[in-house]
Every structure is written in structure tokens, then in C-alpha cells.
């Protein structure tokens, strides 16, 4: 009566034991030696396998780093802290990493940018681009079919209702995958600390642009003439902002006749601490906007003209000026 039970226990137990031993032996025999450093480096990489570095995933980059074929900066996503750790593991020095972010360089949403023809094909920007360079009248315009949103590994891109991609800067890591896939080069990876950028890549001038789009840069050069810091130069009929010189005063943002210079940061303005101010007038001299009022040797005052460039803060020898949010 107990025979079937005993036999089944023996068979299954035997099979299990036999396979256990076999797998144990195989695990030892077929063990693949991995470089310990590669494993340690891999742990400090983000692990999103976005492929932005050009290697097949984070494992690929870790191997290349150990072999000395790649730089830590190849990874746009890794944090400064983790980059330092990787440098320690590999015994190399890692420079300062500039956090980057992808930005949409087009404002030609529906209603602004005209269509050349009605497009009814596959919902993919690359496919649309293959037909006469896309259906937009402007050959630089965002096609708005969401290829960038599909390839984003970090879920940072969504398609806005106006037919233009929107990038969540908190999620974006600046890996550059979307830039590679965009047929129009409407996306660019820029340093995150530069909060003023141009929302147009059309190299045309005046009417050329205006005929097609009511939001594009016409290359008038007003911003370059206005900029008190000389941070803007015109190249190919487009303003180029020098991140070293730009102080985020937003004069160009407000004065642009096409409203195509954009900002991301919240507005700042200067504030004078009346207890510390001795009325030396250095700040008023430094202000390019004439926003500081006050008689010599009297406490000075910041007027509403202030644009928060921060020059006065640097000029004040007594530390009486701080930058605060405008609201």
C-alpha cells in the first residue's frame, strides 16, 4: 500500500538530488570570471541601460571603463557622487560633471506653424520626415508625432496637446537618445544651469520665417544688441547665448519681438539689507539697468526695474545685497 508513495518520493527526491548536484558542479565548472572592478563600476552606474553612452547598456560601459576605453563623462546620467566613486575604483580622476538636460527648440505648435500638406501616414516623426522632409511648412519644426517620447527611457517626454513635445526637466537626464532620433533636430542637450535658451532653430530671416510660422526667430538681432553683458551673438540668423556670460536678467526674453527666447528658472531680484548698507553707491554703478536708487551715504533702494542679474551682489563689498525670488 505504501509502495507507490515510497517510489514517488524516491523518484522525485532522487531526480531533485541528482539535478542539484549536477547544477552545483556545473556552477563551479562553468563559472565565468568577471572583473571585480567592472562589477563595482556597474553598481555605481545608473542602470537604466539607456544607451546614451554608445555602449550596449550599463554593463557595456562598465567593461569599457575598466578597459580604459571610455571616460566616466560618457554617461550623461551618472551623478557627481557616483562618478567620484567610479574614479576611486579605477584610480582615475574625474572632472566636474555638468548636469545636462534636453530642451525642445521649437515653438511652432499648431496654429503657429503652417502645414505644407495633410499627413496621414505612420505616426512616427522619422516616417513623416521621409516624405518631402515632413509636413510642416518650416523645415526645422517639431513634427509632433512623438518619436522622442517613445524612445525616452526615463519617461521624461510627453506630447503636449498643441503638437509639440514637452520635456519634464526633473526626469530628463540629458542622455541624448531623443536628439539622436529626432529627424528635425528640434531637441538639443544643453547644460542645465543655463536657463535662457532660444526656442527656434530656423536659420532663415524675416519673411522667410514669418510666412511659415508666427513663433519662429526672424534673426532680427534685437537680443544681441540689447544684452547688457554681451552674452548673445548672432550666428546663422539665430542668437547664440554664451552660458559663461549670461546672467539670467531675461531682458532678451521680455524684449524679443517673437517671444522665442525661453527661460526655465523662477524670477529673482536683488534685496538690500538696510542695516548693512552704508550708501557707497558701488552697487548703483554696477547695475546695468539703473535699478538702484539712493543718495551717497544714504541707504539704497532696489526699484522694480531690477532684473535679478546679481551684478550688484558681487559689487557690494559689505554683503548687504542678496538675491531673492521676486514674488
Amino acid at each position, binding site marked *: 500500500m505504501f509502495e507507490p508513495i515510497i517510489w514517488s518520493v524516491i*523518484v522525485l527526491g532522487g*531526480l531533485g538530488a541528482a539535478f542539484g548536484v549536477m547544477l552545483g558542479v556545473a556552477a563551479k*565548472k*562553468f563559472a*565565468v570570471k568577471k572583473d571585480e572592478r567592472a562589477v563595482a563600476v556597474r553598481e555605481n552606474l545608473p542602470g537604466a541601460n539607456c544607451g546614451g553612452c554608445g555602449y550596449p547598456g550599463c554593463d557595456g560601459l562598465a567593461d569599457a571603463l575598466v578597459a580604459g576605453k571610455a571616460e566616466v563623462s560618457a554617461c550623461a546620467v551618472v551623478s557627481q557622487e557616483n562618478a567620484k566613486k567610479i574614479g576611486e575604483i579605477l584610480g582615475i580622476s574625474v572632472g566636474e560633471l555638468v548636469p545636462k538636460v534636453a530642451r525642445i527648440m521649437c515653438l511652432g505648435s499648431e496654429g503657429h506653424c503652417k502645414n505644407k500638406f495633410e499627413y496621414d501616414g505612420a505616426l512616427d516623426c522619422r516616417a513623416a520626415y521621409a516624405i518631402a522632409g515632413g509636413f510642416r511648412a518650416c523645415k526645422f519644426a517639431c513634427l509632433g508625432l512623438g518619436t522622442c517620447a517613445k524612445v525616452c527611457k526615463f519617461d521624461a517626454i510627453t506630447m503636449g496637446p498643441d503638437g509639440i513635445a514637452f520635456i519634464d526637466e526633473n526626469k530628463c537626464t540629458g542622455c541624448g537618445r531623443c536628439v539622436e532620433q529626432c529627424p528635425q533636430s528640434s531637441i538639443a542637450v544643453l547644460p542645465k544651469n543655463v536657463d535662457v535658451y532660444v526656442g527656434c532653430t530656423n536659420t532663415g530671416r524675416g519673411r522667410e520665417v514669418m510666412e511659415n510660422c508666427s513663433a519662429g526667430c526672424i534673426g532680427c538681432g534685437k537680443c544681441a544688441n540689447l544684452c547688457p553683458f554681451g552674452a548673445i551673438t548672432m550666428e546663422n540668423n539665430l542668437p547664440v547665448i554664451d552660458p559663461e556670460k549670461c546672467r539670467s536678467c531675461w531682458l532678451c526674453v521680455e524684449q524679443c519681438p517673437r517671444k522665442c527666447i525661453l527661460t526655465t528658472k523662477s524670477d529673482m531680484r536683488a534685496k538690500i539689507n538696510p542695516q548693512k548698507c552704508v550708501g557707497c553707491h558701488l552697487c548703483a554703478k554696477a547695475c546695468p539697468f539703473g535699478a538702484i536708487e539712493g543718495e551717497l551715504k544714504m541707504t539704497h533702494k532696489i526699484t522694480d526695474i531690477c532684473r535679478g542679474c546679481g551684478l550688484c551682489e558681487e559689487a557690494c563689498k559689505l554683503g548687504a545685497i542678496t538675491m531673492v525670488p521676486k514674488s
Partner: protein
Amino acid sequence: MDTFIRILTILLSSILVNNFVLSRILGICPFLGVSKKVETAVGMGMAVTFVMAMASLITWLVQYFILVPLGVEYMQTIAFILVIAALVQLVEMMLQKTSPGLYQSLGVYLPLITTNCAVLGVAILNITEQYNLVESLVNGVGGALGFTLAIVLFAGIRERLELSAIPKPFQGFPIALITASLMSVAFMGFSGLV
């Protein structure tokens, strides 16, 4: 000649007529899960072919050399699962050591199908149909090729669906399931072929 025809019949039947996915409705999990890109679908198909062939062979041996002589055929299901799972693990280790290239392309899919019902299904069907060793192997390989055919075709359709304007309620899985059922209907056309 008779054996040859019989083997050909089994092969054709397992690929087209009794297609594992579209006719027997086995192995639906990888069919829906790994069919977003043709590339990964091919990888999955190769891994399934490999595992099914091995499983058919080994489980046949286990059945007729261990279970039948000891009179414990009712232990079939659990014994087969054990055998297949251990086997796939072993093969994965060997692949990793001996051919990293093949491991790169198959490795990720192998653990996914160790306990897949299509793999267990082919092993049990071999026994109930009373196939001999060669026929079992042919049935296993044929079933897996049928699976590969179905999943690659399906992935091709899904890649195109990605680019089409689909009404919101049908986006994602609903349209995939409808596609799968339409494919199943299409494959019904093969019934009566063998």
C-alpha cells in the same frame, strides 16, 4: 518511407495545424509579452526552439526509463517540470561559459521559458500521443518552430500597430489581443491539412 511520411506529417501538424499558440492556446505569456519587436521575438523563438527540443528528448527518456519501469507515471507533470527547469539552468550556465555570443542573444529569454506551459505541453503531448523518441523530437522542434512563426508574425503586426492611429480604448493590449485572435482564426484555415 512510411516513417518518413509520418515524421513529415507530425512536423507539418505541429507547425501549422496544431500551432501551439494559435490553435492549442499554450505559451500565451511570452507570445504577448515578448512580441513588441521582431528582433526580440526572433530571440525568444530561438530560445523556445532550443528548450523544446531538449525538453522533448529528456522527458521522453525520463518517462520510459524512470517513470514507467517504476510504475509512477502519475508523477509525470511534476517530474517533467523539475527536469525541464534544471535542464534549462544547466544549459544557461554552459552557454555563458562556452559561447558568450549565443548567451547574449538567447540568455535573457531562457529563464523566462523554463516553466512555460508550451514546453511542458509538448512533453506531455509526446507521451499521450505515444510518439517514439525521434517523433517526440520532431514534434518538439515543429511545435517550437510554429511558436516562432506565430510570435514573429505577431511582432511584425504589432510593430506596425505602434505607428497607427488606434482609438484610445483599443490602445495597448486590447488591440494586441484582437490581433492575436484574428491570427488564430487565420491559422484555422490549416485545419484538415493533415
